[in-house]
């Protein structure tokens, strides 16, 4: 009987070796479980990419232009003690997982072969590390090459019966290393008979078993630390190896555990689906490091997570799953300031014995809390509490901090002994990090960058490793870099690929003279309009300019002209990608971190006076009552007549002797802006306040000289009014053209609960009512929050109200319903950002969409895709917030510097009261600082906290009541803060 098997890759066709398959189970999101069979076609033309090899050059696949991708690995790789003939490194997965920081060092680790097996494993284990690895392969200087060993016939390894996946992958790595060694040797031989220098291909692995097997097969292999020890500056490099793995081996025998185990992923997912558990982002209170909160959709108010045991190794920013605790354990949010450094000063970094999860002092601090819970004020009502049962995603980043002096055993600089020290992060919400280092002596007094690697159940603090030192504490360079790193601001210079996208003419670029030039197509010639710009003094990146003139029919023509950045930055080139990554320009006190290269930002795009520039113009016809008749959008060419500062513009408008057309145009603008403003307020726009100060610096050294609160002139609001109008008009137009994909900005109405506390405070202390039903009601009631004796009181309330609001965000129009588009603060139905494309990426995208909406050009496909736009929005929302925070931290630092050595008495206001301290806000410097009871006198005075009336009655010799909103005199001195090592302003009560 004739018989044919139906099996494709059965044992029968063993000769057919270019075909293999792998089988795995895939679980889809919808809950389906599928068996997947992937066929693998093995090939022989994957090159080794070593410049030593000619054979591979011939067989390597070519691209469309018949060119082979350039080979990566050097023909003369660096050698080492063990391998004097030079080496190519083949790290295994764990080497990358534990030593990624090492591989990123510029001075070492060149000529590295990344096997596909390893790359895929890294991807499965940690996506951020995978992205870093991919970035490394793109760095030409490092010479990292991805070798697709799973597709090359010689290096493909079939899984054996009973072999685990890990073992199989290890074997694949060994096989690849073996093949490479053989291949390179053959290649060198083929090249010349005489050449003796054959580089060795070395496997880097920390797996003992793998090392042993490699030895048995005589494959060159080293452990990561052995390899690093053979390099120069080994000590610094060794500190950069992740501590996670090492610890596991050392401590595995120890059974003592501090924290409960996490639930399994499936248990958590089930729980979240059944809403017996909740998922959210873990946030730690900046005032109390033991109190975390998780906002979950199921509860109006955030769930409180109290104490170390309940927070169970979650770190601020992690996505966690929590379980609500029984009602008898519900508590009120803390009214006490608890700071880690005061409670756990004496922990020993080295020894773990005798550590409790909750130290005795921590327990006492928490107990004080519980006593107080039974107060009945709205603020003190018990809130649901929860405990963390598992982590969905760690959002660990690099942390800047300094080494805790007390944890260093020997601070001798010459000692190279390894010791474990504590790193105290700058961010108070992050716990101390235990770090193993050989250079403790040198690192003292430095700003240090470190990573968290792991947090095991048996360790009270997370374990991390050193990355690099930023420089001395308090030095301007180190502090600036520190805050940029803390807020994840990309501050490296623009790479060459980005600079290549700039116009070749450089600074000599001009608007083409001939109107037939392609640059003029679709552009209106608006050079004869009397356009001028109004900006802060010293502004070089001028985004916007304005004009106004009277029309024959009695109406006015008003124009807003915005720098035409989208002409220079084309979608999807390197410059565009870099800009979308950066998202925004970051303004520090003495420094600006640009989103676009200088050439564009401060010259070619900037609407400088007296020169012709490309612009994107919005031109309205408005009635004298500031009602809009028509709005037109066009690309244009303008010539700004003058660049004013706010003050200059104000002086010119106020000077009645000036009667030229330009000045009269500005007066028209001023008149219209006031009407527009009034209309906006009538519609319910909010006038919010945030403490803004300006640091005056000496021009040469940029050392701070003085601090002033920012003055607001009418011209400020003139510009602002028309920018708002332009943004609203453009938002409407873009939405009309692209209802699904317009990039807009919304400001959600804050939930009422956000205002509960403030409303209660106002009611109790001042007898005022805060109405929050709508933005209009809020605006009106804020207007009524006046204190006759105290003009600043109103501003204070506004500052506090601002903090109760949601933050505005960018979004893609297809993701929300139209009513959700509303901008609460501006009381506008629709809004976007259009007017600052030089410094915001969102504006650039809006420009592109508007250009397509008026048929000026085709819309790039990336702006058609909802998914892509959502990604862009997510990123720029984060960047925007980070830029603001970085700016604020910078001001804070400089205020500290300006007050260095000074001793001033100023008036301040009490903003928040705790049971053992209170927060004072000093408007003159825009600083907000904590005054603890123990700062008032020593020993710490007794105090009674009346939470219902917001009064702290201090007893003893101080004998004084501190009330909320009270005006107090404070003495301001400066002091180096122990916990962060930063110079901070210190306030004391007078």
């Amino acid at each position, binding site marked *: 009987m004739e*018989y044919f098997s*139906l*099996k494709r890759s059965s044992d029968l066709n063993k000769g057919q070796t270019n075909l293999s398959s792998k089988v795995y189970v895939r*679980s889809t999101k919808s809950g389906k*479980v599928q068996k997947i*069979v992937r066929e693998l076609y093995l090939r022989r033309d994957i090159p080794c990419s070593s410049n030593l090899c000619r054979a591979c050059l011939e067989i390597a696949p070519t691209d469309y232009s018949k060119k082979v991708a350039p080979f990566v690995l050097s023909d003369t790789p660096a050698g080492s003690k063990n391998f004097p003939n030079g080496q190519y490194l083949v790290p295994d997965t764990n080497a990358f997982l534990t030593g990624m920081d090492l591989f990123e060092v510029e001075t070492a680790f060149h000529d590295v072969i990344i096997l596909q097996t390893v790359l895929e494993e890294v991807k499965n284990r940690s996506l951020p590390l995978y992205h870093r690895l991919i970035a490394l392969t793109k760095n030409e200087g490092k010479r990292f090459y991805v070798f697709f060993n799973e597709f090359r016939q010689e290096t493909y390894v079939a899984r054996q019966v009973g072999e685990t996946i890990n073992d199989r992958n290890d074997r694949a790595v060994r096989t690849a290393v073996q093949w490479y060694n053989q291949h390179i040797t053959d290649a060198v031989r083929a090249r010349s008979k005489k050449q003796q220098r054959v580089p060795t291909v070395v496997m880097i692995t920390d797996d003992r078993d793998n090392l042993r097997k490699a030895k048995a097969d005589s494959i060159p292999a080293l452990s990561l630390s052995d390899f690093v020890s053979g390099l120069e500056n080994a000590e610094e490099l060794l500190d950069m190896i992740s501590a996670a793995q090492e610890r596991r081996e050392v401590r595995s025998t120890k059974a003592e555990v501090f924290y409960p185990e996490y639930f*399994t992923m499936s*248990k958590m997912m*089930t729980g979240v689906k059944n809403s017996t558990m909740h998922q959210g982002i873990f946030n730690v209170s900046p005032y109390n490091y033991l109190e975390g909160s998780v906002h979950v959709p199921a509860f109006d108010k955030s769930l409180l997570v109290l104490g170390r045991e309940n927070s169970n190794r979650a770190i601020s920013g992690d996505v966690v799953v929590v379980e609500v605790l029984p009602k008898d354990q519900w508590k009120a949010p803390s009214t006490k300031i608890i700071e880690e450094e005061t409670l756990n000063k004496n922990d020993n970094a080295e020894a773990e014995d005798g550590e409790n999860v909750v130290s005795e002092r921590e327990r006492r601090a928490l107990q004080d809390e519980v006593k107080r819970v039974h107060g009945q004020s709205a603020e003190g009502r018990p809130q649901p509490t929860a405990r963390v049962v598992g982590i969905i995603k760690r959002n660990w980043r690099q942390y800047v901090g300094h080494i805790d002096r007390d944890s260093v055993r020997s601070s001798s600089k010459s000692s190279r002994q390894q010791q474990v020290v504590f790193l105290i992060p700058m961010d108070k919400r992050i716990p101390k990090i235990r770090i193993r280092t050989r250079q403790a002596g040198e690192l003292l007094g430095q700003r240090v960058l470190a990573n968290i690697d792991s947090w095991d159940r048996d360790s009270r603090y997370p374990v991390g490793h050193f990355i690099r030192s930023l420089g001395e504490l308090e030095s301007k360079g180190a502090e600036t870099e520190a805050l940029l790193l803390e807020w994840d601001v990309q501050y490296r210079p623009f790479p060459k690929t980005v600079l290549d996208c700039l116009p070749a003419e450089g600074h000599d670029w001009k608007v083409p003279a001939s109107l037939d030039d392609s640059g003029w197509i679709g552009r209106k010639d608006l050079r004869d309009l009397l356009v001028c710009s109004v900006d802060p003094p010293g502004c070089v990146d001028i985004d916007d300019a304005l004009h106004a003139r009277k029309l024959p029919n009695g109406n006015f023509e008003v124009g807003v002209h915005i720098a035409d950045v989208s002409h220079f930055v084309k979608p999807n080139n390197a410059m565009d990608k870099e800009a979308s990554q950066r998202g925004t320009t970051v303004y520090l006190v003495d420094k600006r971190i640009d989103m676009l290269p200088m050439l564009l930002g401060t010259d070619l795009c900037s609407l400088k006076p007296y020169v012709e520039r490309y612009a994107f113009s919005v031109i309205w016809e408005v009635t004298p009552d500031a009602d809009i008749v028509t709005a037109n959008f066009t690309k244009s060419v303008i010539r700004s007549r003058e660049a004013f500062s706010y003050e200059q513009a104000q002086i010119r408008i106020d000077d009645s002797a000036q009667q030229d057309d330009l000045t009269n145009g500005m007066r028209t603008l001023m008149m219209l802006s006031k009407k527009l403003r009034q209309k906006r307020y009538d519609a319910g726009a909010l006038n919010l306040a945030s403490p803004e100060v300006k640091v005056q610096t000496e021009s040469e050294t940029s050392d701070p000289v003085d601090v002033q609160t920012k003055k607001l002139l009418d011209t400020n609001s003139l510009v602002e009014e028309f920018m708002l109008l332009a943004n609203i008009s453009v938002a409407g137009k873009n939405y009309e053209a692209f209802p699904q994909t317009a990039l807009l900005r919304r400001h959600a109405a804050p939930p009422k609960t956000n205002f509960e506390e403030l409303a209660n405070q106002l009611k109790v202390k001042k007898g005022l009512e805060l109405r929050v039903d709508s933005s209009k009601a809020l605006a009106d009631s804020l207007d009524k929050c006046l204190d006759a004796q105290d003009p600043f009181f109103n501003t204070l309330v506004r500052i506090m109200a601002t903090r109760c609001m949601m933050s505005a965000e960018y979004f893609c129009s297809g993701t929300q319903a139209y009513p959700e588009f509303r901008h609460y603060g501006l009381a506008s139905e629709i809004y976007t950002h259009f007017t600052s494309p030089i410094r915001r990426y969102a504006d650039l995208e809006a420009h592109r969409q508007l250009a397509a909406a008026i048929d000026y050009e085709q819309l790039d496909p990336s702006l058609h895709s909802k998914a892509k736009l959502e990604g862009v929005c997510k990123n720029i929302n984060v960047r925007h917030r980070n830029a603001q925070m970085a700016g604020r931290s910078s001001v804070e630092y400089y205020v500290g510097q300006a007050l260095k050595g000074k001793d001033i008495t100023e008036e301040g206001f009490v903003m928040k009261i705790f049971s053992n301290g209170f927060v004072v806000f000093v408007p003159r410097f825009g600083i907000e600082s904590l005054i603890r009871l123990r700062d008032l006198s020593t020993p710490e005075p007794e105090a009674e906290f009346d939470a219902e009336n917001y009064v702290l009655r201090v007893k003893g010799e101080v004998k004084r009541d501190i009330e909320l909103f009270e005006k107090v005199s404070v003495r301001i001195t400066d002091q180096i803060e122990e916990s962060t090592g930063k110079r901070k302003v210190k306030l004391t009560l007078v």
Partner: protein
Amino acid sequence: MAPAQLQQVNLSPAELSYLRSTLSQTPPIRLDHTKGPRDFRSMRAEYDVLPGANGSARIALEDGLEALVGVKAEVERSQWRPTPEERDARLSVAAGDIDMKDEDDEDDNKGKGQNAWVEMSVEIAGFRDDDSLPVFLASMLTESLLASGELKDRLYINSRFHWKLYVDILLISPALSYPLALLSMTTHLALLTSRLPALKSERDEDPLFDDDWDASVPLYPKSKGKAAAGSPVDKPPVIVLAMAVGSNVIFDPCKEELAVADAVLAIACANSQSSPNGTRIVSIRTIDPPSHLTPPGVPNSMNSATGGVVPTSGADALTQRELLANSGVWTPPRGGMKRGLVGQVVKMVVEKGGVAEEVIDALQAIEVG
């Protein structure tokens, strides 16, 4: 229910009569004279032929009959069903209603599994899927598969989820002879080699599975004991077809043999758990043999051409035929089987070293070897 559309056997009454007489001899001589009454047609079998399925098998018989079976498992959400205690608690409110539980429900409730978790489809070239043959075959196979109740319990994941098993049976050749036994054997082999992804989650959580296929678990777990290393403790049932001719019992009859059968029995057996040897019956059915439809021979005495007298009425003809029953003139059998014969067949199938055990062991050997 007769396999009505099965290809008709083109044999004359004389040939049928001859065939029947050879089969009823002692010992019987079968159409393939090299085979004894208990011999099966030789076959070729292989499993795991469909890489994307959880289990699959293909069997080809020497007469060209060939079947392919694929088993696919999907995770499905279970309907909420009260446990018996819960149900009692609920019903106690309306006491006396307990009787209202119908029989079928009771039956379904014995284990954790439900009958609906197994879905079987039989496809035969040239037949519509609602033709009686495929439907009948599918119901026979499903019935035997579910009868023991072990399979459906194995599909239970937790109180909220279960596996839904799709058994797709394909007869890839034309239906040359009655394919029940072949389909059953192929299904048996496919189920025997089926694997389910390994469960990682616990209890009532949403199920989460190991993504390593090598870690998957067999649907019919293998026993760990040394004695029967590699052989499943429990195996899917297999249907054996037996026919009776006179007092002879013949297993695995071919198409022509079926055409002269007095009666046909389909016996589904599974290995018994109580004793290591021997098998137990899960279900048994008689099948209407195609021999009923064969044209009767006309005896000389009733044929006017040969000098006989054509009976005047139908009843008269019947009486005359009755008298000629053993004369060698072909008369379609009237069906029916003696109790003793049924007992004999069952014994031959079930006893230690019996036909069922032989078949099961043979199929097992394919997987092991």
